[in-house]
Protein backbone atom coordinates (compact mmCIF):
# COMPACT_ATOMS: atom_id res chain seq x y z
CA UNK A 1 0.00 0.00 0.00
CA UNK A 2 1.55 3.30 -1.09
CA UNK A 3 0.75 6.31 1.02
CA UNK A 4 0.92 9.97 0.01
CA UNK A 5 1.02 12.63 2.72
CA UNK A 6 0.10 16.05 1.39
CA UNK A 7 2.25 18.91 2.72
CA UNK A 8 0.80 22.40 2.78
CA UNK A 9 2.73 25.51 3.83
CA UNK A 10 2.26 25.47 7.60
CA UNK A 11 1.50 21.74 7.95
CA UNK A 12 3.44 20.56 10.96
CA UNK A 13 2.37 16.97 11.51
CA UNK A 14 3.33 15.67 8.08
CA UNK A 15 6.65 14.23 9.21
CA UNK A 16 4.98 12.75 12.28
CA UNK A 17 2.41 10.98 10.12
CA UNK A 18 5.08 9.64 7.80
CA UNK A 19 7.09 8.36 10.76
CA UNK A 20 4.06 6.70 12.34
CA UNK A 21 2.82 5.01 9.17
CA UNK A 22 6.27 3.83 8.12
CA UNK A 23 6.98 2.68 11.67
CA UNK A 24 3.68 0.86 12.16
CA UNK A 25 3.38 -0.72 8.73
CA UNK A 26 6.77 -0.65 7.06
CA UNK A 27 5.07 0.44 3.85
CA UNK A 28 6.12 3.18 1.44
CA UNK A 29 5.17 6.74 2.42
CA UNK A 30 5.79 9.81 0.27
CA UNK A 31 5.41 13.53 0.88
CA UNK A 32 3.54 15.43 -1.84
CA UNK A 33 3.84 19.22 -2.06
CA UNK A 34 0.51 21.08 -2.26
CA UNK A 35 1.44 22.77 -5.53
CA UNK A 36 1.59 19.46 -7.42
CA UNK A 37 -1.39 18.81 -9.68
CA UNK A 38 -1.25 15.03 -9.66
CA UNK A 39 -0.68 12.36 -7.06
CA UNK A 40 2.06 9.80 -7.65
CA UNK A 41 0.60 7.18 -9.99
CA UNK A 42 0.57 4.26 -7.61
CA UNK A 43 -1.00 6.11 -4.68
CA UNK A 44 -3.39 3.98 -2.65
CA UNK A 45 -3.86 6.00 0.51
CA UNK A 46 -3.85 9.80 0.88
CA UNK A 47 -3.42 11.59 4.19
CA UNK A 48 -4.06 15.25 4.92
CA UNK A 49 -1.99 15.83 8.08
CA UNK A 50 -2.47 18.16 11.04
CA UNK A 51 -0.90 21.56 11.59
CA UNK A 52 -1.65 25.14 10.75
CA UNK A 53 -1.83 25.16 6.96
CA UNK A 54 -1.67 28.77 5.75
CA UNK A 55 -1.42 29.81 9.38
CA UNK A 56 -5.11 28.93 9.93
CA UNK A 57 -5.70 32.32 8.34
CA UNK A 58 -9.18 33.27 7.09
CA UNK A 59 -10.62 29.91 8.27
CA UNK A 60 -8.79 26.74 9.27
CA UNK A 61 -8.11 24.69 6.16
CA UNK A 62 -9.86 27.17 3.86
CA UNK A 63 -6.89 28.03 1.67
CA UNK A 64 -5.41 24.53 1.77
CA UNK A 65 -8.72 23.19 0.45
CA UNK A 66 -8.22 25.38 -2.63
CA UNK A 67 -4.60 24.28 -3.25
CA UNK A 68 -3.75 22.83 -6.67
CA UNK A 69 -3.26 19.26 -5.34
CA UNK A 70 -6.78 19.10 -3.90
CA UNK A 71 -8.36 18.44 -7.31
CA UNK A 72 -6.40 15.20 -7.54
CA UNK A 73 -7.10 14.38 -3.89
CA UNK A 74 -10.85 14.86 -4.40
CA UNK A 75 -10.70 12.71 -7.52
CA UNK A 76 -8.92 9.99 -5.55
CA UNK A 77 -11.68 10.18 -2.93
CA UNK A 78 -14.47 10.12 -5.49
CA UNK A 79 -12.99 7.03 -7.11
CA UNK A 80 -13.20 5.28 -3.76
CA UNK A 81 -9.55 5.64 -2.81
CA UNK A 82 -8.67 5.72 0.90
CA UNK A 83 -8.50 9.31 2.15
CA UNK A 84 -7.79 10.40 5.73
CA UNK A 85 -7.85 13.90 7.24
CA UNK A 86 -6.33 14.37 10.71
CA UNK A 87 -7.09 17.54 12.68
CA UNK A 88 -6.26 20.33 10.18
CA UNK A 89 -6.74 17.61 7.58
CA UNK A 90 -10.31 17.05 8.82
CA UNK A 91 -10.87 20.82 8.55
CA UNK A 92 -9.56 20.72 4.97
CA UNK A 93 -11.92 17.85 4.11
CA UNK A 94 -14.95 19.78 5.38
CA UNK A 95 -13.84 22.95 3.56
CA UNK A 96 -13.51 20.83 0.41
CA UNK A 97 -17.01 19.48 0.96
CA UNK A 98 -15.58 15.95 0.85
CA UNK A 99 -17.08 15.52 4.30
CA UNK A 100 -20.18 17.30 5.70
CA UNK A 101 -20.14 19.94 8.43
CA UNK A 102 -17.59 22.42 9.75
CA UNK A 103 -15.16 22.78 12.63
CA UNK A 104 -15.65 25.83 14.86
CA UNK A 105 -13.46 27.27 17.66
CA UNK A 106 -13.44 25.14 20.82
CA UNK A 107 -16.17 25.93 23.29
CA UNK A 108 -13.54 27.11 25.80
CA UNK A 109 -11.92 29.34 23.15
CA UNK A 110 -8.61 27.79 24.21
CA UNK A 111 -6.28 25.44 22.41
CA UNK A 112 -6.19 22.08 24.16
CA UNK A 113 -3.48 19.41 23.99
CA UNK A 114 -3.83 16.26 26.06
CA UNK A 115 -4.41 12.49 25.84
CA UNK A 116 -8.02 11.79 24.88
CA UNK A 117 -10.31 8.77 25.13
CA UNK A 118 -12.51 7.87 22.20
CA UNK A 119 -15.22 5.27 21.80
CA UNK A 120 -15.11 3.40 18.50
CA UNK A 121 -18.65 3.65 17.11
CA UNK A 122 -18.24 1.94 13.78
CA UNK A 123 -15.96 -0.93 12.83
CA UNK A 124 -17.33 -1.29 9.33
CA UNK A 125 -14.92 1.25 7.89
CA UNK A 126 -11.52 0.36 6.41
CA UNK A 127 -9.97 2.55 9.13
CA UNK A 128 -11.44 0.72 12.10
CA UNK A 129 -11.84 -2.88 10.97
CA UNK A 130 -9.44 -4.23 13.60
CA UNK A 131 -11.14 -2.50 16.53
CA UNK A 132 -14.23 -3.82 18.25
CA UNK A 133 -17.46 -1.84 18.46
CA UNK A 134 -17.60 0.15 21.67
CA UNK A 135 -13.87 -0.24 22.29
CA UNK A 136 -12.25 2.68 24.08
CA UNK A 137 -8.98 3.93 22.60
CA UNK A 138 -6.63 6.81 23.37
CA UNK A 139 -5.51 9.25 20.63
CA UNK A 140 -4.14 12.63 21.84
CA UNK A 141 -5.84 15.83 20.77
CA UNK A 142 -4.19 19.16 20.02
CA UNK A 143 -6.47 21.76 18.53
CA UNK A 144 -8.08 25.14 18.94
CA UNK A 145 -10.89 24.65 16.41
CA UNK A 146 -12.36 21.20 16.93
CA UNK A 147 -16.04 21.87 17.62
CA UNK A 148 -17.83 19.79 14.99
CA UNK A 149 -21.08 21.32 13.83
CA UNK A 150 -23.79 20.23 11.38
CA UNK A 151 -27.40 21.41 10.91
CA UNK A 152 -29.96 19.34 12.87
CA UNK A 153 -31.41 17.24 10.03
CA UNK A 154 -28.00 16.52 8.51
CA UNK A 155 -26.70 15.52 11.93
CA UNK A 156 -29.57 13.05 12.31
CA UNK A 157 -28.92 11.67 8.84
CA UNK A 158 -25.22 11.27 9.68
CA UNK A 159 -26.00 9.37 12.84
CA UNK A 160 -28.67 7.23 11.18
CA UNK A 161 -26.34 6.04 8.45
CA UNK A 162 -23.64 5.18 10.98
CA UNK A 163 -21.34 7.92 9.78
CA UNK A 164 -19.91 8.64 13.23
CA UNK A 165 -16.74 6.59 13.66
CA UNK A 166 -15.22 8.01 16.89
CA UNK A 167 -16.92 9.74 19.79
CA UNK A 168 -15.22 11.57 22.71
CA UNK A 169 -15.69 9.55 25.88
CA UNK A 170 -14.16 8.90 29.27
CA UNK A 171 -11.92 5.91 29.99
CA UNK A 172 -15.00 3.77 30.57
CA UNK A 173 -16.53 4.70 27.23
CA UNK A 174 -19.16 7.03 28.67
CA UNK A 175 -19.90 10.21 26.76
CA UNK A 176 -20.86 13.52 28.36
CA UNK A 177 -19.88 17.15 28.76
CA UNK A 178 -16.86 16.37 30.90
CA UNK A 179 -15.47 13.97 28.34
CA UNK A 180 -16.06 16.35 25.41
CA UNK A 181 -12.97 18.55 25.04
CA UNK A 182 -14.36 21.06 22.55
CA UNK A 183 -18.17 21.04 22.57
CA UNK A 184 -18.61 19.01 19.37
CA UNK A 185 -22.19 18.16 18.49
CA UNK A 186 -23.09 14.69 19.77
CA UNK A 187 -19.52 14.35 21.06
CA UNK A 188 -18.38 13.61 17.51
CA UNK A 189 -14.63 13.18 17.14
CA UNK A 190 -14.45 11.55 13.71
CA UNK A 191 -16.78 10.80 10.80
CA UNK A 192 -16.75 8.89 7.55
CA UNK A 193 -18.47 9.61 4.22
CA UNK A 194 -21.35 7.52 2.90
CA UNK A 195 -19.12 5.31 0.83
CA UNK A 196 -16.84 4.75 3.82
CA UNK A 197 -13.54 5.59 2.16
CA UNK A 198 -13.03 9.12 3.48
CA UNK A 199 -12.43 9.62 7.22
CA UNK A 200 -11.92 12.85 9.09
CA UNK A 201 -11.04 13.02 12.80
CA UNK A 202 -9.71 15.68 15.16
CA UNK A 203 -7.56 13.42 17.41
CA UNK A 204 -4.08 12.35 16.25
CA UNK A 205 -3.59 8.60 15.71
CA UNK A 206 0.02 9.25 14.69
CA UNK A 207 0.66 10.48 18.24
CA UNK A 208 -0.42 7.11 19.64
CA UNK A 209 1.70 4.89 17.45
CA UNK A 210 4.56 4.17 19.86
CA UNK A 211 4.42 3.13 23.52
CA UNK A 212 7.29 5.44 24.41
CA UNK A 213 5.63 8.60 23.14
CA UNK A 214 1.91 8.40 23.70
CA UNK A 215 0.42 4.94 23.52
CA UNK A 216 -0.10 2.32 20.85
CA UNK A 217 -3.80 2.41 19.96
CA UNK A 218 -2.83 4.29 16.82
CA UNK A 219 -0.97 1.24 15.50
CA UNK A 220 -4.24 -0.68 15.30
CA UNK A 221 -5.69 2.20 13.31
CA UNK A 222 -2.91 2.04 10.70
CA UNK A 223 -3.04 -1.75 10.66
CA UNK A 224 -6.80 -1.68 10.00
CA UNK A 225 -6.18 0.49 6.99
CA UNK A 226 -3.48 -1.78 5.61
CA UNK A 227 -5.52 -4.91 6.24
CA UNK A 228 -8.63 -3.45 4.61
CA UNK A 229 -6.59 -2.30 1.65
CA UNK A 230 -4.92 -5.65 1.20
CA UNK A 231 -8.23 -7.50 1.46
CA UNK A 232 -10.19 -5.07 -0.65
CA UNK A 233 -7.46 -4.57 -3.19
CA UNK A 234 -8.26 -0.84 -3.33
Amino acid at each position, binding site marked *: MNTAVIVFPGSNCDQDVMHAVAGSLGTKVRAVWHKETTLPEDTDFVILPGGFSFGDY*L*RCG*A*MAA*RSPIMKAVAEHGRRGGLLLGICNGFQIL*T*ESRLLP*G*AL*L*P*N*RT*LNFVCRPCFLRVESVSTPFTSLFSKGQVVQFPIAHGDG*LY*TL*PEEELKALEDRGGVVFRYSDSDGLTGDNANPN*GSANNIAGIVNERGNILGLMPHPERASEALTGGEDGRVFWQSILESFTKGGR
Partner: protein
Amino acid sequence: MTYRVSIFIELQEGVLDIQGKAVERSLAGMGHDALRSVKVGKYIQVWVETGSAEDARKEAERMCDDLLVNSVIEQFRIEVEGE
Protein backbone atom coordinates in the same frame (compact mmCIF):
# COMPACT_ATOMS: atom_id res chain seq x y z
CA MET B 1 -11.55 52.11 -12.23
CA THR B 2 -10.49 50.90 -8.81
CA TYR B 3 -13.32 50.13 -6.46
CA ARG B 4 -13.00 49.38 -2.76
CA VAL B 5 -15.41 46.61 -1.83
CA SER B 6 -16.28 45.89 1.80
CA ILE B 7 -17.34 42.36 2.67
CA PHE B 8 -19.06 41.74 6.02
CA ILE B 9 -19.06 38.07 7.01
CA GLU B 10 -20.98 36.63 9.92
CA LEU B 11 -22.05 33.24 11.21
CA GLN B 12 -25.46 32.02 10.07
CA GLU B 13 -28.36 32.02 12.51
CA GLY B 14 -28.32 28.81 14.43
CA VAL B 15 -24.56 28.40 14.30
CA LEU B 16 -23.03 28.61 17.75
CA ASP B 17 -21.17 31.91 18.12
CA ILE B 18 -18.82 31.12 20.97
CA GLN B 19 -16.70 34.19 20.48
CA GLY B 20 -19.82 36.35 20.54
CA LYS B 21 -20.93 34.69 23.78
CA ALA B 22 -17.52 35.13 25.40
CA VAL B 23 -17.35 38.79 24.44
CA GLU B 24 -20.91 39.30 25.68
CA ARG B 25 -19.99 37.86 29.07
CA SER B 26 -16.89 40.02 29.36
CA LEU B 27 -18.74 43.22 28.49
CA ALA B 28 -21.59 42.39 30.86
CA GLY B 29 -19.04 41.73 33.58
CA MET B 30 -17.58 45.17 33.00
CA GLY B 31 -20.93 46.79 33.72
CA HIS B 32 -22.46 47.31 30.27
CA ASP B 33 -25.99 46.79 31.56
CA ALA B 34 -27.66 47.97 28.36
CA LEU B 35 -26.01 45.14 26.38
CA ARG B 36 -28.36 42.47 25.06
CA SER B 37 -26.21 40.42 22.71
CA VAL B 38 -22.99 40.28 20.69
CA LYS B 39 -22.16 38.73 17.34
CA VAL B 40 -18.53 38.48 16.22
CA GLY B 41 -17.84 38.46 12.48
CA LYS B 42 -15.22 39.40 9.92
CA TYR B 43 -14.59 42.46 7.81
CA ILE B 44 -12.60 42.06 4.58
CA GLN B 45 -11.81 44.78 2.06
CA VAL B 46 -10.82 44.04 -1.53
CA TRP B 47 -9.73 46.60 -4.11
CA VAL B 48 -10.70 45.58 -7.66
CA GLU B 49 -10.20 47.12 -11.08
CA THR B 50 -13.48 46.88 -13.04
CA GLY B 51 -15.61 48.88 -15.43
CA SER B 52 -18.47 49.57 -13.03
CA ALA B 53 -19.52 49.31 -9.41
CA GLU B 54 -21.88 46.51 -10.34
CA ASP B 55 -19.01 44.56 -11.89
CA ALA B 56 -16.99 45.18 -8.74
CA ARG B 57 -19.83 43.70 -6.68
CA LYS B 58 -20.00 40.66 -8.95
CA GLU B 59 -16.22 40.13 -8.65
CA ALA B 60 -16.46 40.27 -4.88
CA GLU B 61 -19.36 37.82 -4.86
CA ARG B 62 -17.27 35.40 -6.91
CA MET B 63 -14.41 35.73 -4.43
CA CYS B 64 -16.81 35.01 -1.60
CA ASP B 65 -17.97 31.87 -3.36
CA ASP B 66 -14.44 30.80 -4.19
CA LEU B 67 -12.76 31.32 -0.85
CA LEU B 68 -13.78 34.11 1.46
CA VAL B 69 -17.04 32.66 2.81
CA ASN B 70 -17.85 29.14 4.04
CA SER B 71 -21.49 28.85 3.00
CA VAL B 72 -22.06 25.92 5.37
CA ILE B 73 -21.80 28.19 8.38
CA GLU B 74 -21.40 31.78 7.18
CA GLN B 75 -23.39 34.46 5.35
CA PHE B 76 -22.24 37.79 3.96
CA ARG B 77 -23.18 41.18 2.57
CA ILE B 78 -21.28 43.51 0.29
CA GLU B 79 -20.89 47.28 0.10
CA VAL B 80 -19.16 48.90 -2.86
CA GLU B 81 -17.67 52.35 -2.33
CA GLY B 82 -19.04 54.70 -4.90
CA GLU B 83 -22.21 52.70 -5.45
